[in-house]
């Protein structure tokens, strides 16, 4: 029997449900990119499961014509873990937001990544609570004025990538909703990664936090303020590609190419660096003035996959003890006969 996969088109992954995000929402672009990438992965459609929590982004599963689970606030990583570790054959993706995955669900997010369960986490980061209409989120900038912080937020924000790298996530990447080719490239790489993949997608909420990422998305500013990471390539950025990132002790510095500074002096990106400290350094650099925001794949390393380890352990014990017989279990321990 030949098991040839049907040739899927984008529309095969579009459900019959009306998409109900606000017009102009960045979520549309992310949905479109995912629907464009899934048909190309060579995976049967029925093997996909999209899991979400609560929030605007978490409506995602309803719009995907795959198996889907719209969970409860913050818990998508835990639900997805239950699916993946009992059914490693399934291709499990989580769609979540900055409030969902970093506030109420922060615990589940870090533990999913720590275990390296083979689940892809798409974090839609718009730095605001949209569905509850405009409260500040754990990624909102310090001083953010929002419905619940009329005098400015006093909370220091999370950097989602630093958080993921802090728990040694094996695949950590960032893209932007409107950078469609880039986003699709990152999604494909995430799909190909065996373990946990954590992808932060910078996403615009044009209703409650419009322009949150303007510094990175504005055509005039984009090249100066972002740096696209390419494995094996020097860290170069700028409209004229005349600036680069150089190591200075345990820090990074921005240098201008020329005047004795060449690409050979720059950091050569190594996404396979086993030490997460390298990617961590990248994730932190735009906290300093003058530095660009990195996009692309910060880290991609191999590590044992949790769901496969579980299956392997079961196989090992079963091989050693033989398949469990119910009668043996019931008769375990000392027994005695009453006549």
């Amino acid at each position: 029997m030949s098991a040839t996969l049907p040739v899927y088109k984008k529309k095969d992954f579009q459900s019959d449900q009306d998409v109900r995000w606000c017009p102009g929402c960045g979520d549309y672009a992310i949905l479109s990119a995912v629907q464009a990438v899934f048909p190309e992965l060579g995976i049967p459609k029925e093997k996909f499961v999209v899991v979400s929590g609560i929030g605007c982004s978490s409506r995602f599963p309803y719009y995907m014509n795959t198996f889907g689970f719209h969970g409860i606030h913050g818990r998508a990583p835990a639900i997805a873990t239950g699916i993946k570790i009992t059914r490693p054959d399934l291709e499990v993706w989580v769609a979540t937001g900055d409030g969902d995955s970093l506030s109420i669900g922060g615990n589940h997010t870090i533990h999913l990544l720590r275990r390296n369960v083979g689940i892809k986490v798409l974090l839609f980061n718009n730095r605001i609570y949209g569905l509850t209409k405009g409260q500040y989120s754990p990624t909102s900038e310090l001083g953010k004025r929002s419905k619940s912080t009329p005098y400015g937020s006093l909370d220091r924000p999370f950097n989602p990538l630093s958080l993921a790298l802090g728990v040694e996530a094996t695949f950590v990447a960032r893209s932007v909703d409107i950078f469609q080719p880039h986003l699709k490239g990152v999604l494909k790489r995430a799909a190909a990664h065996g373990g946990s993949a954590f992808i932060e997608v910078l996403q615009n909420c044009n209703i409650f936090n419009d322009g949150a990422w303007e510094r990175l998305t504005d055509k005039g500013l984009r090249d100066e303020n972002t740096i696209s990471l390419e494995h094996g390539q020097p860290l170069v950025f700028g409209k004229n590609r005349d600036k680069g990132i150089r190591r200075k002790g345990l820090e990074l510095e921005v240098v201008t190419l020329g005047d004795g500074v060449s690409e050979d002096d720059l950091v050569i990106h190594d996404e396979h660096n086993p030490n997460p400290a390298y990617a961590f350094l990248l994730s932190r650099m735009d906290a300093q003035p003058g530095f660009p925001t990195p996009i692309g794949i910060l880290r991609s390393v191999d590590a044992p996959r949790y769901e496969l380890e579980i299956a392997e352990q079961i196989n090992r014990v079963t091989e050693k003890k033989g398949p469990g017989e119910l009668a043996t279990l019931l008769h375990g321990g000392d027994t005695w006969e009453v006549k």
Partner: protein
Amino acid sequence: MTTTSDAPPRPREVLEAAVIRFAGDSGDGMQITGNQFTNTAALFGNDLATFPDYPAEIRAPAGTLPGVSGFQIHFGAREINTPGDTVDALIAMNPAALKVNLSDLKPNGILIVNVDNFKETDIRKAQMESNPLEDHSLDGYRLFPVELTTLTRAALRDVGLDTRSMDRCKNFLALGMCYWLFNREPDATERWLDEKFRAKPVLAEANKLALKAGFAYCAATEAFQVRYEVPPARLAPGLYRNLSGNTALAMGFVAAAQKSGRPLFQGSYPITPASDILHELSALKQYGVVTFQAEDEIAAICAAVGAAFAGSLAITTTSGPGMALKGETLGLATMVELPLVVVNVQRGGPSTGLPTKTEQADLLQALYGRNSEAPVPVLAPASPGDCFWVALEASRIALKYMLPVIVLSDGYLANGAEPWRIPDLDELGEIPVRLRTEAEGFEPYDRDPETLARPWALPGTPGLEHRVGGLEKQDGSGDVSYDPLNHERMVGLRAAKVEAVGADVPDAVPVGDPDGDLLVVGWGSTFGAITAALRPVRQAGHRVGHVHLRYLNPLPRNLGEVLKRYKKILIPELNRGQLAWVLRAKYLVDTVSYCKVQGKPFKHAELKARMEEVLAVEKER
């Protein structure tokens, strides 16, 4: 074991039943000692019930009152329903253990104490004024002061252990004494020691020597003037083993998985007194069991819901505080209509409460503890062995009706043990599971007309791609729906589904008199105490019945009619009257509650007294 002795053979006294309690420091091995005596009594053929009672602190300071750990066993030649109200023989390893436990020792009861631990500092640590061995406060008991530590060291002199390791064997010396006293063979314990210390044979040898020394001490000295015999009980024929509630639950779920053909998944987070279920199942990998120790209680149940979506028989196991955390996800499971079994091994509460003590105060939480209208079936096992059957039944209901089911065990059942007749596999019944595979005409919220269950359509099945979630769904299509009338219909359907389970709930059949003066209604772990108390009351000529509810939701369909056959209804509960509240609301009947919230099970004497009191009032009217 053969022991030579110059002492004359002692007369033997035959007892119908006896209660022994081992009490000492948390580090004295009292639970192991108790379990060994239990196992030996079980193998001998006694019926029995046990009550391990230990502190929440792992090792409170040695010799202090909070550090006292106890293990009580009631074994007999007749049916044994409870661990016993009062104790025939108390083994106290130190003054603190004596002080905490003495009030339960019968007048003239046997009291064995380790005199080596009755020095002035030990007595002070137990907050006692004077040495009870000298101040005549123990004159009402048969006191046997034994130098347990000294004797153990002497017995192990040539083994080559350090003093500390030798002293840790003294519980086996005490156990050896009890084996002599109750005329028991130590071979099962010796086998257990060989197995446990396979990697360290010297420890097996040392403990076996201590055990023999205790036996020989009694045989050689004339301290004990009599030996006791407790003949085997007349249990129903069959093959038996000793079983505790938590082990029974674990076995029940493995059985359910095999009978249903679905793999077993357990999501859990460590919590007393439920953790043993996780320990048991995590050791059963050869049965294909996937156990997941989650990052918290919420993740544990969420992972279980995910596993259920993906096709497992999914369970999550916890105790009250964890149950509180699982509430929202339980609502989700109700909404997505997936099979799930949630075990709550109840303990004293609220909040952290009394982690190692028993209580039945989570009934209303189980019935109502979720936002909005979210009914779920609730079952409660009546004895440690019954935990097996309830795990099986809860799984069957969850899979048949596609909904979450709660099992309410408690600390007393979890750690208590009883002889359990091992069933034949065909006694377990089948658990048929229908997986949807046909894409034609598939709707995720289509329903079986009888059970109202929606189809279980597993990811990976071509053509059945569908979405579930916590948002209200359109009946049939499963699309998100805000339609007011659809919502009302779905709320009704979810309730009707739980009601439909009632078709599988056997009618309530009172034990004792089918009508009369008094009906005692109980649930869960009070079964043994109520049974024991009822017997003398009925023998005294009263017309009394006992209904023990295994299904708390839905209740047996004939229960309302049964309640009306008696003049009075007495409801004993280890809470403030929660079942009474439910029955009064549902059936508009008057009830009398007997409540106890002390972290301890009922004593049958107090239940008997309460029954007599209610009957006397009834007679006066």
